[in-house]
């Protein structure tokens, strides 16, 4: 493994925020750490960046144990949620700041910086101050600044959360493209599962400081190993009486199916979500694409439900 974290533990005032977490990332891979707020994901990032000292555990990057290295000596770059740009420096000075610590002369550094800015589509903005840029542009400067020193590991802490929805989509694919181009090992922290699914090679799901599931995105969705994974990711119908569950897309209208009554429906643009009542009194939800022939509330319909057993899940 290119990056190997073993038994990472961090306590604040006797409260364990990261508990005995171990995982690994291959070179060039993009790992997303996903979880609700307070699950410990940002603390892991801080521990990797060298900004908090872990109470236990080891971090090995490219064969070197960096556990006790201070932030300034780690070949790791972080892009913070609030970007942390230097407000008193121009864009280019921000981008090339890290180069002076690896002994690159100003002239050479500027050349590299301008190249880097081109890659993030910011040519021509070199001499502006960060405050003169839009949120998306500031984000790009932060990424460029992080990449310019060619770190071995790039850490992104909810980098898109301060942007509006449309820009978020745009920058998400840009980040992915840059990550591929540089083939840089990346850890991307988010609480947004859609974001995680669309960008990650692998997802690490966390809750209350513990690692819940570590798998490829599709696997996480289709084969949740715990109740928490099942609940947190996507939407789900429960049939507690028979101890089973189904995803919304596992319920579909079919004449051969069981008869149910439409309790409610909500129009969501491309899709319509229905709430159905089965003959034994269970309510289940399903979605169908917005095509002709929607059902009305109170109407009888036939639907098939593909149930999965709950008892194979942990907790």
């Amino acid at each position, binding site marked *: 493994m290119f990056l190997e974290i073993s038994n990472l533990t961090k306590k604040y005032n006797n409260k364990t925020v990261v508990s005995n977490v171990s995982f690994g990332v291959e070179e060039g891979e993009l790992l997303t750490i996903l979880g609700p707020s307070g699950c410990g994901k940002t603390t892991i990032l801080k521990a990797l960046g060298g*900004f908090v000292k872990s109470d236990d555990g080891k971090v090995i990057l490219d064969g070197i144990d960096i556990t006790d290295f201070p932030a*300034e000596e*780690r070949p790791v770059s972080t892009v913070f949620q609030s970007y942390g740009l*230097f407000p008193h420096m121009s864009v280019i000075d921000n981008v090339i700041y*890290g180069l002076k*610590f690896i002994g690159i002369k100003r002239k050479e550094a500027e050349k590299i910086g301008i190249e880097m800015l081109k890659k993030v589509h910011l040519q021509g903005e070199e001499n502006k101050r960060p405050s003169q840029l839009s949120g998306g542009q500031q984000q790009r400067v932060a990424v460029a600044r992080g990449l310019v*020193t060619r770190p071995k590991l790039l850490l992104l802490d909810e980098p898109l959360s301060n942007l509006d929805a449309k820009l978020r989509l745009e920058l998400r694919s840009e980040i992915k493209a840059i990550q591929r181009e540089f083939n840089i090992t990346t850890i991307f922290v988010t609480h947004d599962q859609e974001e995680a699914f669309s960008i990650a090679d692998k997802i690490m799901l966390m809750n209350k400081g513990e690692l819940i599931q570590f798998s490829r995105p599709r696997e996480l969705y289709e084969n949740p190993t715990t109740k928490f994974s099942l609940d947190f990711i996507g939407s789900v119908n429960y049939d507690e009486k028979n101890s089973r569950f189904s995803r919304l897309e596992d319920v579909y209208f079919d004449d051969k199916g069981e008869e149910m009554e439409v309790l409610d429906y909500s129009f969501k643009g491309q899709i319509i979500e229905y709430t159905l009542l089965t003959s034994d009194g269970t309510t289940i939800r399903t979605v169908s694409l917005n095509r002709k022939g929607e059902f009305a509330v109170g109407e009888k319909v036939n639907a098939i439900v593909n149930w999965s057993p709950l008892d194979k899940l942990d907790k």
Partner: protein
Amino acid sequence: MKNIKYIKKILDKLLISIIYISILVFILYPILCVFYQAMFIDGSFNVNVLNDFLINDIKLLGNSLKVAILSTIISTIVAISVGIFYLVSNKRTRKIINLIMMLTMISPPFVTSLSYINLFGRRGFITHDIFGLTLNTYGMWGIVLMQSLGFISLNCLVVTGSLSRINSKIIYSARDLGADTTSVIKDIVIPLLRPTMLIIALLTFVRSLADFTTPAIIGGNFNTMATEAYLSMVAYGDITRASVINVVLFIPALFVFIIYRKNIQNTNMNEANELEEDILSKNGILYQIVKYISLIFIFFIIIQYSSIFISAFTKKRMGISYFTLKNFIETKAYISKTFMRSIVYSLISGICGALLGILIGYYLEIRKLRFMDFIDLVATMPYVIPGSFFGIGYILAFKGAPFFLTGTATIVVLNVLFKQLPFSSKIGIEAANQISYETINSVKDLGGTDFDVLKDVVLPMSKNNLFISFANSFTATMTTVGSIIFLVYPGQKVATLVMFDVIQSGKYNVGSVIAILIILITMTVNILFYKVLIRREVNVS
């Protein structure tokens, strides 16, 4: 129902009038009076006295500038160093620095001079008792050192305030890119502190120019413009000359005022956070430098307060010091009613100042009344104008009809109240800015008037700010000297003035006792209000 609404409207108008009139009458008018006194004789424009001063006493101007420049440089550099040391330090060290800053903030301004005499004077503990020297240490360097020491804490408070407005992620980013502590301080912290440095340097410069107590106590033969103005007033009763000197002192103050107003608007943007710990590692040459500067500063402060403490509890017989409570008994004669008077004045100024501050905040930020900007501008002026300028202004403005306030307690209370108003109005403006327009519009939406907004939303929501404002004004009034020294009649002295008098007449032990008593009172009030504030915050959450 209609009647009540009408009454509320009248009340609102009444409050507005009170603010407008009181600030114009009690701040702007006295300032104009000093200018008039300095530049008009018998009603016609005449700058002979001013010319005379500039020609004959140019040396005083030079002395003042020398002292002010040196004090500014020293106290700015030390304050920035202590601020950076604070940033790098852990919680415990920060607590100690906070405690020291608080202690000096609640002490009368010339406590430093008193301890200087105790330690380095003709019979000083260090120079005379330890080294057996009888030195004349009175002079320029004594003034510079003591002024600097006095200004450092206040400046340092401004610096740590600015540091807490820096997003810690900026510092993390720099480290992340390979910057060590020295580089972070050099490339990030100091450049970001530049506007703050300008502000503290300018304020120190103006305060040093205006300070007459330090040179009066330890200046010896070395006179400055401020002491000359003070002496003109007290020794020769020459109010025109005193006005002229103060007008000259006012010019740099005005300049500083303009820059201060501009900068304060820029710095209020970011929210303050508690500074994170372990944000920088404790190494590198710059860290070592700021550490040693800070340690020397802390050492000086400790020595300073110990010396006052020792001097309050000891007396000398045949050159040997012994423990005694006699100083306290002796002090009784000087302070019979003074302390009660000081406390009452401070309470009035604290309460009225806090309320007036909130009202200014409300009418300026929420109601956005016409001319309120100008009123706020005037209300901030006492922050930079010399205290003695303000005091002389009060004598000139309120001696005749319709006021006849000379020699009354009212003039003293009014003076301290309006002198401290800039702090209160700043806090009031901050309080008003914390209230959202939705909340205010909700009151109106439900049928409330502007007066109801003030009564039901602004005042209750500003309670914490009112407390802070009160504690600030109380402390400032308890420790003030400059502006009231000419206003108080001999029978009505307040504690700081008595302290100033006894020190000038050489009764240093009594001075130390009074200093300790003043510190104890301000400390009690501050701790009390801090506790109330904490409890309120706990109850809220």
